[in-house]
């Protein structure tokens, strides 16, 4: 694998202490190669989001090693993690979390300003790439759910990350809109990005190179998908 991938070794995450301790992840080992499109599948409470958050450096592991894009990030302080995310990670969440007082394009501009990375000149092109060239002046309240998720995707791409983490990116969308978002993620993968999608929806796995199933904090299965389907053909 190249240094743009993910290597997790003996990854453990425990929330709380004593009787209230919850073991979200129990010694997870996982390698994701650079340029792969991986779907991490699991039911609610399985630990998949925690796994995604630890890969993205917004949550720390209790134990184990986390090497992302060639950097060991376990044990890094919050400031270093912030720099790490800025340099390597893009996040898309189920809820779009757009700033309601900013237009679509400004929602992308703002991360360029606050992260001091990326180029605001390229943002219009990014808006075009997610199919919102003509809606970039609209406020979130004037956009549909799918359009808002596209803005969130453009925002995630604004810092030109190596790895794109999408946590339930279709969770708040209908089938048609969900397909469009998955199509965009698939396009990014085809352009060479590492894309990791976390979902409870097994159908999403159809577009992936690889489907990793997490149950009760452990990897239940890790299957290669020899014939990924086009996002437009996914059904659920």
């Amino acid at each position, binding site marked *: 694998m190249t240094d743009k991938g993910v290597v997790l070794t003996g990854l453990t995450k425990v929330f709380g202490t004593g009787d209230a301790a919850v073991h979200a992840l129990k010694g997870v080992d996982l390698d994701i190669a650079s340029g792969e499109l991986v779907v991490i599948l699991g039911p609610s409470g399985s630990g998949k989001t925690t796994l995604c*958050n630890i890969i*993205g450096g*917004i*949550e720390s592991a209790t134990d184990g090693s986390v090497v992302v894009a060639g950097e060991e990030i376990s044990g890094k302080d*919050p*400031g270093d993690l*912030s*720099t*790490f*995310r*800025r*340099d390597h*990670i*893009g*996040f898309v*969440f189920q*809820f*779009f*979390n*757009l*700033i*309601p*007082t*900013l237009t679509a394009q*400004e*929602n992308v*501009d*703002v*991360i*360029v*300003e*606050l*992260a*001091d*990375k990326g180029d605001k000149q390229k943002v219009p092109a990014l808006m075009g790439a997610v199919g919102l060239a003509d809606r970039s002046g609209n406020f979130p309240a004037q956009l549909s759910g799918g359009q808002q998720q596209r803005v*969130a995707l453009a*925002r*995630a791409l*604004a*810092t030109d990350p190596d790895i794109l983490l999408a946590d339930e990116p279709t969770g708040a969308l209908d089938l048609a809109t969900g397909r469009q978002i998955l199509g965009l993620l698939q396009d990014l993968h085809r352009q060479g990005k590492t894309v990791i999608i976390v979902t409870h929806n097994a159908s999403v796995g159809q577009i992936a190179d690889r489907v990793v199933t997490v149950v009760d904090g452990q990897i239940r299965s890790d299957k290669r998908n020899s014939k990924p389907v086009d996002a437009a053909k996914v059904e659920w």
Partner: protein
Amino acid sequence: MRATTHKTIRDLARQRGQVIAVGITIMLGVMLYVASAGAFQNLSGSYRHTYDLMKFADLTATGGDPAAVADAALAAGAATTATRVQFDPPMLIDGTKLVGRAIGVPTDARPAVDDVRVIDGSYLDPGTTSQALVEYHAAETFGIQVGDTVRVFGAGGWHDVTVQGIVRSAEYLWPARNRQDVISDSHAFAVLFVPEAAAEAWAGTGPDQALVLMPAGYTTAERDSVAAAMHNAGATDVTPWQEQASHATLNEDLKGFNEMAIAFPMLFLTAAGVAAYVLLSRRILQERPIIGTLMAAGAKPRRVMRHYLGQGLVVGGIGAVVGVVLGVVATGAVTSSYASAIGVPDVVVSAHPWLIVNGLAFGVVVGLLGALAPSLRASKTAPAEAMRSAAPAVEPGPWSRAVARWTRLPATVRMALRDVGRSRRRTLATALGSVLSLVLVLATVGMMTSMIEALHLHFDKINKEDAVVTVDASVASGAQATFAGLPGVSIVEPSSVGEVTALAGGHSYVTSLRGFEPGTTMHGFHATDGSFIALPDSGVLAGVGLKDTLHVNVGDTITLSTTRGQQQAVIRGFLSEPLGTTIYSSNAFAATVLPDMGVSTFVLGFDSGVNRDQMRNTITNLPGVVAYNDTKAFAESLNKYLGLFWVFGIVMIALGAVLALAIIYVTMAVNVVERTNELATLRAAGVPLRKVAGTIATESLVATAIGLPFGLLLGVVAAKQFLATFSSDIFQFPLVMPWWVLVGAAVGVLVAAGVSQVPASRAIRKVDVAKVVRERSI
């Protein structure tokens, strides 16, 4: 424009109601600061300018040989000196008999020290002995014109003088006879500047004062050195210009501006800081998922912090700029109206750049400080945690658990009570609003009630006489019976009054010695413990101000010095009197101290309901009466002196209400927004708007009520502190805070809290129930 700037502008616009409330509070604080501090600077500068132009004496000495004292001053470093005679003779002006003041001035040149400014007519002709210059206040009171005749009683009887000019004098910008008599009947005092030769002839004495001008830029040490030389040359009292009666009286008034310039703006700025804190805390709580997303994408914590600090900066900056502009405008208006009310002749309105800089800095710093903690919190947002829930669940505390057990209360009431402890910051902010408002209102009202009560004490319980009448010696023996026989006169007692210099341990103090009959009913001797004591047969009672001035105690002996000589007296007790620091003795003792001016004094008590003007006319026209002073006719002077203070008080009470409304409105608005989901759910379940609004109102009023006891306590302490700053040998105002003031202020704050519920209710009505319950994201 940067996206973050867009966000700041639109965020503020979205919360414009609360932002305007915070901005107005900052604006008021800054405006008060700039206006009051500016007015203080302007008025101080105006006085100083007037004093310089009129060569106001830096030191005034009495006692000893004034020529020798003046020579000693010159030798010790004084720039210019002069001597003159000053005495208080009876006068007849426009049919009114009064004890005025005659001051000798040269006729061959203008006074080298304590000059006058002729505002009508001209200065005295060379060599004249029959002309006079009338001080402006007397001219105003009696309608004196150039060419009129006034009469002065002195050696040889009444002397007619022609008014040559109307003048202003730095010594009488405030027409105070002395530090004991700063507020009195304006018809009972007049100052005439008469030829020195005539003054000396009427007074039957040579010069009795030495006046000194120090070189420009002199130091306190140099002034003290000259004063010491004057003492060594025989002066019994040397008064620096700061302690001169007129200046000291005006300065007491100015102190109010100075106190106001710091304390009151700070109340507003503190409230604004708290409101800004509450406002931004709420925004950051609301934006937690967004901040989490931005942080997850690598937003730098420092940049996030700077962004939210910027919002505080904008609100503080705009409030400060508007406050400074209004403050500068108000400075001119306050200065002009005050100067006009007092009659300050030379008004200096100058720009004070450092006040503008300070005002801007205060506003900006308050905005930044209010935003600091929320901004720090935002920059430390943990992305994963921020996206798990909008806000971390809070464990119910003891209060919530206790309220839960009060099952007899309706659930809505229990909810309201429990919510008080749910957001401690919001509850504390509301309570703080109540505290700050009460401090502002009570400090103001407390000063007003204390002054009113003090004046009531002074003029009704201490100075119980209705009039003081002076007669010439020729009718003195039969005067008491004559007065007693007048219809409407109930009591007549002989009295005496004169100026003395009290000396002890190297300290001196010029004051009045008043004599009464033992067992007098015309004067109440109000002891420091609040009781009324009897006038002793021997020794003196003295105003408590003398204790600190002369460093003496009960039982100590002081020396009383007059032009007649010196006399020892034992202090039998100290008195607490609101105005002045007077010495009292029996008439018999006073007669051994005061010089014989050829007149006798009587104090008269009137029947209730008597026509005072008629009484003044009747008594004034009696043969031998040379002066009449209606001691109850002080209202005009008092209103002039306190007029602006009352206006200030009313404005402060109104601003207190604004402050309470602003901060409680902000906290209430935040409360509604934070709880939009649960309020919408209640409404969706069919709970009427009235009940939902009632729950919020109950919570608000409880939070406001929590602040009441602290506000009442701190308000009383603040009022006491403010009054303490006025405490001097001229004024003593013990705090009087009637219960109804406390109750009224508390009710007022609760009403303000109630009024602030109106916009909150409107916000609840506007909640789109369907939208809120449908959407989780903002």
